């Protein structure tokens, strides 16, 4: 994928630019397998037990939802950048449960671009990342940042 598309540098990731990817269909087996490994709570594991919770049925671990969002972020644009990882995430809200069979897409909006003062080859961009379901509802909203390489020769 990355070989067929142009590399994106920090300079290309400007406030207001939107990247999208998806859909990713979360199957029941994958939902349960993740929960078994990383979040074995009844409402992520067991249909009958989940039916008795306020969620009314099986829902994905929120950590799986952010994992799917991350995968789509990589597909949307990070896979084409000189990615230097991320210092962190300021806020995540799980706004709607993600359920088996949901078709999930990512919408990533750049809100700020900050070239590094100390390291002229890189900079940080801040984003609002959203995981949207098949009904257009935002299931996960995340505010965070990524570090990206600058276009060679562009540093001042």
């Amino acid at each position, binding site marked *: 994928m990355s070989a067929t598309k142009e590399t994106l540098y920090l300079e290309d990731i400007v406030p207001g630019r939107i990247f999208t990817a998806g859909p990713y269909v979360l199957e029941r087996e994958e939902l349960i397998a993740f929960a078994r490994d990383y979040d074995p*709570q009844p409402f992520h594991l067991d249909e009958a037990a989940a039916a008795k919770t306020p969620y009314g049925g099986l829902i994905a671990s929120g950590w799986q939802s952010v994992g799917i969002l991350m995968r789509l972020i990589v597909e949307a644009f990070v896979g084409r950048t000189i990615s230097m990882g991320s210092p962190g995430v*300021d806020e995540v809200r799980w706004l709607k449960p993600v359920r088996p069979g949901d078709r999930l897409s990512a919408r990533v909006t750049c809100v700020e671009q900050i070239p590094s003062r100390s390291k002229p080859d890189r900079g940080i961009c801040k984003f609002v990342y959203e995981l949207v379901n098949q009904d257009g509802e935002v299931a996960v909203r995340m505010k965070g940042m990524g570090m990206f390489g600058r276009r060679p020769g562009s540093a001042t």
Partner: protein
Amino acid sequence: MRSRKLRYWEDIAIGTKREGGGKIVTAAEIIAFASKYDPQYFHTDPKAAEKSIYGGLIASGWHTAAMMMRMLVDGFNNDTASLGSPGFDTLRWYMPVRPGDILSVRSVCVDKAPSQSRPGTGSCRFQTEVLNQKGEVVMSLITIGMYRRRPQGEETPT
């Protein structure tokens, strides 16, 4: 689970600590997680990762978060009347997690409030840290849990 008394929102005091640990990180698990959820080469390709700024394979930060969740569930959540979480705040990744690392988690309740919108429930905020075998904090965040409140008439656990 049925044989134990549940811990409700009332039973989680500010200062309540929870700990877990002993999670051994393997290259195979790093690659399996990242192949699905964070397919960047420094998480999926040990050879290519050597040439990255990290100098070798490192775990996805989201994999570290997932391993943290498992340690918390094993250590604490399954004893409580947990209703899940609305989200988390201020997550920071301080240093890479590599194959062979042994992770632990420590979490302390720093704030709690009854829910305004959902009677019978309350939330707690926890300052949560993931550490490696050298005692270095590799990740920290504020986790948020929602819990059922104790139904009237039910005894407190001893």
